[in-house]
């Protein structure tokens, strides 16, 4: 179900672990990389490959916010909403982004560029509030810095 290269990669990754199922996280990354998000077929296929139940895979996908089960924009804007960030104004950050990209939490902007998400603790409590854009962290963000950041991404 993956490209030949990715199949090889998965085969190899499986050998890293004493039990197959341990490879579920990297397998999901491969799926996401290949299809943009984790599709229904991916979930079934991975379950099959790793001797897991479909729903165990589903639990993992939904637990980790870095996986998407729906098509997403080019940039995933993930606002941490757990305690420290929330105290430091994460809510305003989210609102500012909504305003800026013109769609709500859980949605993708019309131009398909951005998806806004609220996520649980990103582990940057000391540098709250924190925003994660795809794999990059942006600490101590403010409505202004977020504005600038998005403007920059828009032109990329």
């Amino acid at each position, binding site marked *: 179900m993956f490209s030949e290269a990715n199949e090889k990669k998965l085969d190899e990754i499986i050998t890293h672990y004493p039990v197959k199922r341990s490879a579920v996280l990297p397998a999901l990354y491969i799926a996401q990389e290949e299809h943009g998000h984790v599709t*229904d077929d991916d979930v079934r296929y991975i379950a099959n490959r790793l001797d897991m*139940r479909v729903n165990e895979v589903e*639990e993992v996908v939904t*637990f980790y916010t870095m996986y998407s089960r729906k098509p997403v924009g080019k940039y995933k804007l993930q606002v941490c909403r757990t305690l420290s960030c929330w105290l430091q104004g994460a809510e305003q950050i989210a609102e500012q982004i909504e305003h800026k990209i013109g769609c709500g939490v859980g949605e993708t902007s019309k131009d398909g560029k951005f998806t806004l998400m609220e996520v649980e603790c990103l582990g940057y409590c000391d540098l709250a509030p924190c925003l994660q854009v795809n794999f990059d962290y942006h600490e101590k963000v403010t409505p202004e810095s977020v504005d600038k950041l998005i403007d920059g991404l828009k032109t990329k």
Partner: protein
Amino acid sequence: MLRVTINFKTHEFPEGWTILEAARSLGLDLPTLCHDDRLRPCGSCRLCLVNVKGLSHPATACNTQLAGGMVIETHAPELENTRRLLLREMIDEYPAEPVRNFPEKPFHRWLIHYGLTNECSGTATPALADDTHPYIHVDMSQCITCYQCVRVCEDLQGQFVWQAMFRGARTHIFPDSPPGARESLRDSSCVSCGACVDVCPTGALEDKSLIERGAPTEWTRTTCPYCGVGCEMNVGVREQRIVTIRPALDAPVSKGHLCVKGRYAFDFVYAADRATSPMIRAPEGWKSVSWDEAIAFTAEKLAQIVERDGADSVGLLGSARATNEENYLTQKFARVALGTNNVDCCARVCHAPTAAAMKAILGTGAATNSFDDIEQARTILVCGCNPTENHPIVGARIKQAARRGAKLIVSDPRRIELAEYADLHLPLRPGTNALLLNALASAIVEEGLFDEQFVGERVGEWEDFKEFIRAYAPEQIAGLCGVEAKLIREAARLYATAKPALSVHGLGMTEHSQGTEGVMCLVNLALLTGNIGKPGAGVNPLRGQNNVQGSAHMGCEPGNLTGFVSIADGKERFESAWRAVLPASRGLNLMEMMDAAEQGKLKALWAIGYDILLTNANAHRTRQALRNLELVIVQDMFLNETAREFGTVFLPAASSFEKDGTFMNAERRVQRVRKVIEPIGGARADWEIICEIARAMGKGEHFAFRSAEEIWNEVRTVWPVGRGISYDRIENAGLQWPCPSEDHPGTTLLHAREFPTGKRAALRRIDYSATPEVLSNEFPLLLITGRKLYQFNAGTMTMRTRNAELYPTDCLDISLHDAERLGVADGEWVRLCSRYGEAVLPVRITSQVKPGELFATFHTTEAFLNNLTSPFRDQYVATPEYKVTAVRLEKIQPLPMSGNRE
């Protein structure tokens, strides 16, 4: 014992207890929301926190073990504050209405206790409700994510339905339904055992019946009316109506678990077509009559026929659905009131081969061990039975044992659910049990894996057997039975070395022309390997119906009296006990009764709780036989097929929820059946009806019983090994026979030191003989018949409950290979033809059956599957060969309407 101080008083507690157990034993009401006695403690809700002197933080009582000298405080003010705080966290979005409507739910009880009811500010969100399941209402707006449903489904039922998705405050519990039907429990892999409903502390999961009919006001404990596992249940009643059934938590067999049949399939009691008035057939059809009239008519007819043609022209069939007391009376009626041994029961068509084989070799025709041995076994051999569907509580226990690491061998032509959990699956060709089991024995002998000491001390005919079994080397047999030699050897090694090894078997072993001998081969294996008389081992038939063990054991058997004592051995003793002269010669068994009726020798038949026409193999001949009878007395809850076509008199019987008595389960345990509601309409308990007819025939002195207990006490006088089992003693938990005296604890394990027949049991040298039912060009496919989880046997009860929505019609399972070859699609209705008849039913394409083999259920009158089955029978006890029929599959057009009974 440990000395522990709790709330300033010192007490002694057994080692191994948790703080929670100790606190509860003192009557302390500690709040818990994630704890259930059926599950391993997980300590996640934190409500049970207690102070333990010397620890810096409070400890969770549910998963902290007691230690000597502990000083514990359970209700200190700061603990109570913490509890209130924790609960408050959970009710942020919790709706207030359910707290008002169901104050008894554990979560609501605690909210009320801590004065938090006014703080429930949420409202029920319709989007979070799911009513797709026929029995279970789901409303996740009441979910507090305690995970109990997730855990009980995995660790008790073994079904993995509930899944926790997302995380943190957004965690949501979903069933494992496919994407697109995400919220629908109906589309999930749920097997409707109801365990998640039992543990849910809020009512997010609840029985629909309870919501519709209101909370019960009375609870009565009784034994399940369905299979031979013998689960115990508490029946909740409100205004004479059953509103819900819950598992009895301390039940020795079921340990707080039930399957969909016991848990939910009770509404047959109230079915619109329940026959509740006695009836006599008149030329224009059935005519309702008074009980007096029906009794007088029946008694007079019976007397006439006995007078004219002799007592042996009458046959009686006891019921595996009726109590021990009633079966005892049935056979006593035949023998004392009529003077014939023509009395049998449906054990004839199921485990009669087991009883005969085990009695012949081991001396007792019943399970050697108990269900509790499942957890002690290192290897479990599942042979010709499908426990997760037909004995679901045993199935669940085997599944959990396998998950914990017990070795599992499944010998079955089909890839049944347990095969997925098995170390080895032996997909033998149907009808070759004796071959395969002999091959296992052969490998064990050849490889020297037998138990030398056991064989030396407890086994007979060893030398001859050793010679004989050589011919069955796996390599010789593999081609004939369809299992690779290598696999046979692996199974032999596992069974013989990973001990103790326990076997369970079912009708896949017995319903063959070589049924009895097949079971003998299985017993041989246990003897060879020393797996007899030991905990965690043995040969254990899974009996099909709640009281099939009891009905035959009480004497509904043409050759045996109460206690399975042969007529020759017991006649004198019973004559003096019953103060009557008994017929000396063995009577006709069920199949012989059919033959005799066909030949005009049998004139009358009284069938109690038994639809012979639908369930006997080869219905064409059953019809011919029944047609010849002058008098057919049908005693049942419904006008069954036998009654509809051939009944002369119909006597409406009470269900087991409507009377007292006992059932005997598959592990020889006698358990109480209790009256939960009054009989519906004019229905009467079977035992009352029998006594009435006996009285009307002038035999009242032998049938002067006023209660089920009085009958049972008479049973105890004629059944020495059951003498110690009194109603008083089984008030709380059943007892397993042998139990010869009131101070005897009952017997969980048979043959520990010797056999009833002596020190040694002799191995049997069984040669394989193939069934005469052979495949041909005209009939090239092999049909296996059996049951499915949601339906029970003739469907008389389950088809009249919402189980019918879960399995509406009989189905024909077919492999993808055959389906493609024959050009039939999933769900398409087809015609099956055998040499004896036809049946029409829809197909289901599945990988459970092999190419060339088919599997169909026999639950409905619409499919009437026994029109297909053959006349062949077991050579010892005449059990019909339900498991092997040569058939041909034909496409049909146009498609008929669905065969749903409703």
